[in-house]
């Protein structure tokens, strides 16, 4: 690789990564609004985040809504995926399409739709309204992840379990579920993150009562550019980093546990 390409590559990486990293020093800043480089450093904005109810309530709302969205999404997606992947029926193609529709329609269109429709149902400005709307947006993501997993699932494993004496319920609990566990975890994680991160629909329908963290951050940056935003961004950034790194640490720890030595006997 020539030098120019290398420098170009570094520049692109820097350009993409800079906004991620720039919030970290800004969160320790003592400026009264977002400012870079910071004039001085202190931890005051961390204290105000963890003590100010104006921030803690939206955080709690977001966690609550994302958790409920995840549970509702999985309750819908797991049976739907089994039906759509394993069975043939009339209208299957249409059902497949409808599952993925919320991903294709722009969020702003969905948001306007929810605003007027949920208004009629008295669901605007309620937790339930946001949960339902977010579930709708999470379903296609969870479905895509889980159906890819289920398509790769070897059905002979279930047949083997049955031939070995497992009833259909036992087969599901002892074989199907444990083997699909990684797919289930990842699709619930995506459903959770989708909801936690979602802003457009939240701005339209969450209101003051069910205000989510992204909505609060959006309002705040428009009105006062409170550096607490940098604190939250930093915390979320490190939370995600830990999430990504955790599996590596876990496997590194596991491989340090000594395994029983290789037996001398030879088998083919």
């Amino acid at each position: 690789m020539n030098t120019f390409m290398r420098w170009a590559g570094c520049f692109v990486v820097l350009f993409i990564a800079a906004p991620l990293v720039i919030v970290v020093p800004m969160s320790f800043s003592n400026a009264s609004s977002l400012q870079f480089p910071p004039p001085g450093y202190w931890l005051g904005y961390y204290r105000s985040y963890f003590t100010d109810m104006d921030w803690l309530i939206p955080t709690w709302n977001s966690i609550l809504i994302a958790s409920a969205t995840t549970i509702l999404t999985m309750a819908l997606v797991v049976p739907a995926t089994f039906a759509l992947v394993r069975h043939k029926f009339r209208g299957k193609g249409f059902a497949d399409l409808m599952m993925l529709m919320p991903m294709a329609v722009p969020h702003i269109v969905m948001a306007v739709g929810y605003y007027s429709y949920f208004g009629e149902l008295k669901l605007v400005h309620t937790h339930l309204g946001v949960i339902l709307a977010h579930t709708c947006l999470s379903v296609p993501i969870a479905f895509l992840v889980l159906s890819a997993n289920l398509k790769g699932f070897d059905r002979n494993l279930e047949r083997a379990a049955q031939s070995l004496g497992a009833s259909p319920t036992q087969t599901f609990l002892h074989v199907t579920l444990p083997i699909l566990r990684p797919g289930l975890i990842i699709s619930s994680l995506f459903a959770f993150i989708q909801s936690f991160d979602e802003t457009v629909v939240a701005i339209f329908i969450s209101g003051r009562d069910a205000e989510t963290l992204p909505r609060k951050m959006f309002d705040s940056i428009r009105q006062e550019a409170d550096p607490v935003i940098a604190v939250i961004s930093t915390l979320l950034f490190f939370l995600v980093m830990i999430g990504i790194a955790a599996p590596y640490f876990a496997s590194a720890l596991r491989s340090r546990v000594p395994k029983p030595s290789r037996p001398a006997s030879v088998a083919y």
Partner: protein
Amino acid sequence: MTSYLELSNITKTYGHFTALENVSLSVDKGEFVTFLGPSGSGKTTTLMIIAGFEKATGGTVKVGGLSISELAPHQRNIGIVFQNYALFPHRSAVENVYFPLQMRGVSRAKGMKQAEDMLSLVGLKGFGHRHPKELSGGQQQRVALARALVFEPSLLLLDEPLGALDKNLREQMQIEIKRIQRSLGVTTIFVTHDQSEAMSMSDRIVVFERGRIEQAAAPLDIYHRPQTSFVASFIGESNLIPATICCAGNKTAKSLALGSVDYAGADNVLLDGQEVTLLIRPEHIKLSRNPVDGRRNAFMTVETIVNYGDNALVIGRAGDIPLRVRVLGADVVIIKEGEECCVSWTPDSVFVITK
């Protein structure tokens, strides 16, 4: 001895397609029976009906005198080894083998001990803690076998279990499976499309073709006394020569290509003028430069010689009939491609097929 596994008039249709038609078969306790046939011949469908994964359109399956047709797969107590082994990836080898015992309510301590013992029997002592992906193909095969046998099933079904292994390993596993099957005395159905596997392992071979049983007999009977042209051509190499019985009293048939051919016997009553097919195996034909006294001789034009070292296959034509002759490697030097030579055989090596 009364039969142990009994299939009576099993029929399976998918819409207008008939996958199996009146398949009936009796298998003795402890017998090793191979279902042999090309793909789509119905052998795997039959196996799946015995296992309970497919429902027969008609007919019954009995084991030990009791019908199992209405039982769900998990109630049948039948061990199955799948072509891809279907080991549970989230369980170690010994936990895989423990699974059927766990499902039967055996305590973990007792079941794991039993599973370890079964792994020793299949030659995997000390490999129990490994997960399937840490085992070679042959080892996975052994785990699958141990898992299918540990609960003392009433039947063992093997669905092309050696298909994924390379040639050397396949031969080792043939011997292994046979040894384990004998030592446990479990009644076994083995499905394969590999005729040499069927010949070397089975007590009896059942040849399937187009959803029917063509013939069910001991391997050597299948080879030497095939009842249909399909069986003759599917098992081993064969020369099939159309002929007409010209004199049943003298045991002589007439063929356009080879002239008069004497035969030693036939399984059916033959009538003068009957159209038949004569089977002569390539290794029973003798090749010579000049006619051999005391034998029926015919002339063949040699087209291709394929050398295998210890033996050679000579392909030629007698009249309009293609002939294949197996000769020892040392004998092949007497002829060249394009030459004409003599082929001869004894009446003992001619078998008359009426179907």
